[in-house]
């Protein structure tokens, strides 16, 4: 009794994958298996040539329209706030500058410098945290 090739073997052959020698020999002589192989080959070829699906709109344009606009590295709002803060500090120094000298006279220079550095770090950290939080919120809103 002749053992014909299995569907798995036929699919491998239609895919141009190597087959065991015995299967190749059988395929060479068996018209039934040749016909079954041809059916798979035709199916694979026809599938590969099917038209690709496509949307009726421009997907790239639709996606780009939903992306967040690129923002300047230093938003103008923050710039305005910085100018205002500097203005207030400047006005304070001009108005009460004369009274600040005696206040700091009692402090040792090293301690004062240390405090100033720590205060600077705290302020900078807070500002960065604020900016990061703002960006997170904008991102969440954009993608919600």
């Amino acid at each position: 009794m002749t053992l014909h090739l299995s569907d798995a073997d036929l699919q491998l052959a239609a895919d141009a994958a190597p087959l065991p020698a015995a299967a190749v020999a059988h395929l060479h002589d068996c018209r039934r298996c040749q016909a079954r192989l041809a059916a798979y080959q035709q199916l694979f070829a026809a599938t590969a040539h099917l038209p690709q699906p496509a949307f009726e709109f421009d997907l790239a344009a639709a996606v780009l329209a939903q992306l967040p606009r690129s923002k300047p590295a230093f938003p103008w709002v923050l710039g305005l706030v910085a100018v205002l803060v500097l203005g207030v500090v400047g006005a304070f120094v001009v108005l009460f500058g004369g009274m600040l000298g005696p206040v700091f006279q009692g402090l040792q220079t090293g301690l004062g410098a240390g405090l100033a550095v720590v205060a600077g770090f705290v302020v900078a950290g807070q500002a960065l945290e604020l900016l990061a939080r703002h960006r997170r919120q904008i991102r969440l809103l954009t993608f919600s």
Partner: protein
Amino acid sequence: MSHSPTPHTTDQQLVAQVLGGNTASFGQLVRRTEGLVTQLVFKMIRHPADRPDVAQEVYLKVFKNLAGFKFQAKFSTWVGQVAYNTCLHYLEKKQLVLVDLSEPPPDDPSEEGRRAPPTLVAGPDYDPETALFDQDLASILSAAIEQLPPLYRTLIALYHQQELSYEEIAQITSLPDGTVKNYLFRARKLLKQRLLATHQRDDL
């Protein structure tokens, strides 16, 4: 320095440009991968009205997670992975089945080819180039593929139409290589048997 994308710009360069704030370069990345994403969305999402939203959601997720992509795989494979998972999430939300394992076995092969015409293919002189223009064959085959479960449709499309390797398909679907091969084998066998059950071919 100009950052205008050209056809020769690599995916990696485009990603760097997008991360640098040039969102226009993202359009180029979309155009390079939309064939794969569209194929996945069309094969996995049966309702046409939902497909545009799902496809756009895929790219918004890609954009959002772009900084986390470190080119461990091809960019297109990663986008395919995002698309597959997004479609999967959609199917879960809608409680749809990706592959119905309780499906009855295909018809007895001995019954193959005994039903009425039209003929599926032209015979031994079949020429794939001619088939390109054979709208009847294309529509019969498309309709038969549409009747398959979503995962089978998807695997056939990825392997035969997108010409992806088993490894790439395994990465996209997070299935083991062997499972991909097994499902693809079953999908093609089922497709052939269903076609033969409804369309005659004399030499089978």
